[in-house]
């Protein structure tokens, strides 16, 4: 068993909804993340998958310790992120870094590439000499394939292509040599070929620097190539977690099954797909029982009343009334 790097216990995030003057004071809290548990092992890539509004970005931000609203426990090694004092929080910041979706918005257009990549060093490693700082920036740029790095230090973001910008953002995230990288839709804005280029780069860097990665994405087909394990999120809850290959080949949860069915791929012909109707509800309006039941194609009476308990079935966590125990599952779900 690999060592656990991050352990999340019963984490919830409540946001206070602002609704104007009249209804102020009422309890309008919405639960964007609702009591989730998961673990991340050292060196693995965990993909967090869900539709927009499922709360996946909120989870990423909470793990980074960026959300004061987060409750529960987020253990980073033996430190609880949510209870850490200022000194420890600063130390944690150097261990965790985030990569954002939009390479156009995440950079100040008036700063040079050197300034952008060196900023984390300027904040967290203040006693670094300018020469040492330059050296580390160059190494980070070389690592992300911006060679020779010296040529890029004085350039501005607008002089770079979309792919190069995303590389600079990755360099900025890696310059502190973090143990955990949270990549929030790192390639969803990029073209097919560039997407592959950046993902291959991330996988290469992960092997070289041995960091752990939480990849937030809605692209199931890509997770197949990059993630060791996959967690399916819906309306603030994790419905299924397991090894990527198993989950995609034999999804237990009906929601996972539906998500897999709608992935467009070039090897499928013209056919009407079983698409779920409706949309993910607002977290202020969570359905009773299993929160997926109004859209579930296999809904049963019990789903409307009782919240399913998390079940562990061969290395996999799944929350669904259809999955009672290991035997039941084998009859109902596998294709074998």
């Amino acid at each position, binding site marked *: 068993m690999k060592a656990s790097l991050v352990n999340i216990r019963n984490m919830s995030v409540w946001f206070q909804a602002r609704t104007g003057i009249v209804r102020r004071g009422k309890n309008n809290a919405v639960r964007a993340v609702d009591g989730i548990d998961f673990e991340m092992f050292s060196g693995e890539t965990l993909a967090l998958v869900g*539709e*927009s509004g499922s709360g996946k970005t909120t989870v990423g931000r909470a793990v980074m310790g960026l959300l004061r609203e987060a409750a529960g426990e987020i253990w980073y090694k033996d430190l609880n992120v949510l209870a850490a004092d200022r000194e420890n929080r600063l130390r944690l910041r150097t261990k965790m870094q985030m990569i954002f979706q939009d390479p156009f918005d995440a950079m100040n257009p008036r700063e040079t590439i050197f300034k952008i990549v060196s900023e984390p060093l300027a904040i967290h490693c203040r006693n670094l000499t300018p020469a040492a700082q330059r050296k580390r920036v160059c190494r980070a740029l070389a690592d992300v394939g911006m060679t020779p790095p010296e040529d890029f230090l004085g350039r501005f973001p607008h002089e770079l*292509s*979309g*792919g190069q910008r995303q590389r600079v953002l990755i360099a900025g995230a890696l310059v502190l040599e973090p143990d955990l990288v949270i990549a929030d839709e790192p390639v969803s804005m990029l*073209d*097919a*070929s*560039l*997407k*592959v*280029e950046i*993902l*291959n780069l991330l996988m290469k860097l992960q092997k070289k620097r041995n960091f752990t990665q939480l990849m937030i994405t*809605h*692209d*199931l*087909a*890509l997770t*197949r*190539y990059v993630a060791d394990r996959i967690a399916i999120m819906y309306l603030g809850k994790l419905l299924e977690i397991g090894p990527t*290959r198993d989950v*995609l080949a034999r999804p237990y949860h009906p929601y996972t099954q*539906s*998500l*897999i069915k*709608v*992935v*467009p*791929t*070039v*090897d*499928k*012909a*013209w056919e*009407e*797909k079983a*698409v*779920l*109707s409706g*949309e993910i509800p607002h977290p202020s309006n969570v359905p009773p029982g299993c929160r997926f039941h109004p859209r579930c194609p296999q809904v049963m009476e019990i789903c409307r009343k009782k919240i399913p308990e998390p079940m562990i079935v061969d290395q996999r966590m799944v929350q669904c009334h259809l999955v009672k125990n290991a035997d039941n599952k084998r009859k109902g779900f596998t294709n074998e």
Partner: protein
Amino acid sequence: MNTQPSILTVDNLTAEFRLGEIYYPALHDLSFDIRQGEIFGLAGESGCGKSTTATAVMNMLPENGRIKAGRAMFEGHNLLTLSEKELRRIWWGKIAMIFQGSLNSLNPVRRVGSQIAEVLVLKGGLSKPQAREKVNELFSLIGIRPDRSRDYPHEFSGGMRQRVMIAMAVCLDPGLVIADECTTALDVMIQAQIVNLLKHLNQTLGLSMIFINHDLALVAEICHRVAIMYAGRIVEMGSVGDVFARPAHPYVRQLVQALPLMEGPVDRLKSIPGSPPRLQETPRGCPFLPRCIDGDDACANQVPPMLPVHPGHYAACFKNKDVHEGSR
């Protein structure tokens, strides 16, 4: 194979854009036709000219763009030489567009239904009660409860607003709809719903469509035929089955290899090294040559024309291999 007559025929369309004082070619010699009842895909990486093609065909190029040569024949008219007044009769009524940004193009302070009714009254010549009736019909068609037509746009989700834009596009029974990245801002599940809706409209109304998208997998799912663009040119064109299963152009071959699949072995995905040429630097020969693994001197001196690979399947490459050998 679709043997219907063409609804739109584009011949040798060439367009250019002014940057500073100089005009640079953005579209080179495009020829394609859309057949009655067909969904035709225009795909390629960003900057390859897909959207420019749509705006050029509609004669809607921005200020700094101009058509240099070519024709776009629609119902006996060349769209590229019509006056603005004549074009207005064709836009929306005969050819409608659905944009990506259309999520934001509803008026926020007016009820959704009355915005569609306005089009029906002003452009379609319907009376107000007739228009209301038609709005209800359209709402059932796009799968939204007709009573929701009295809601305001902010009460609708992104997917529902896109459905409304689709309803608006088809409300005057146009012969052709151009959908430009119409699912890009939407979630996978909502995207699948919209794709099903477009297919449904294609099948029930016989609607012809140009489906522009950067997501090749999505194009493969919805379209009958597809043209893949690179640096302002069509480099391969044919039925979806031919182009994606037996790509003949090296660019398309590599592009298809870069697409993740949901089945089969998990190999490392391959990207295409290099990047497309910029607008300012149009090479003399094949624009893909700097990134091509098969290219030689012939490719450097002349732009390859569209050469037949197989009946109905064309690729702009001198090195066309017989990709159909043994497959039929």
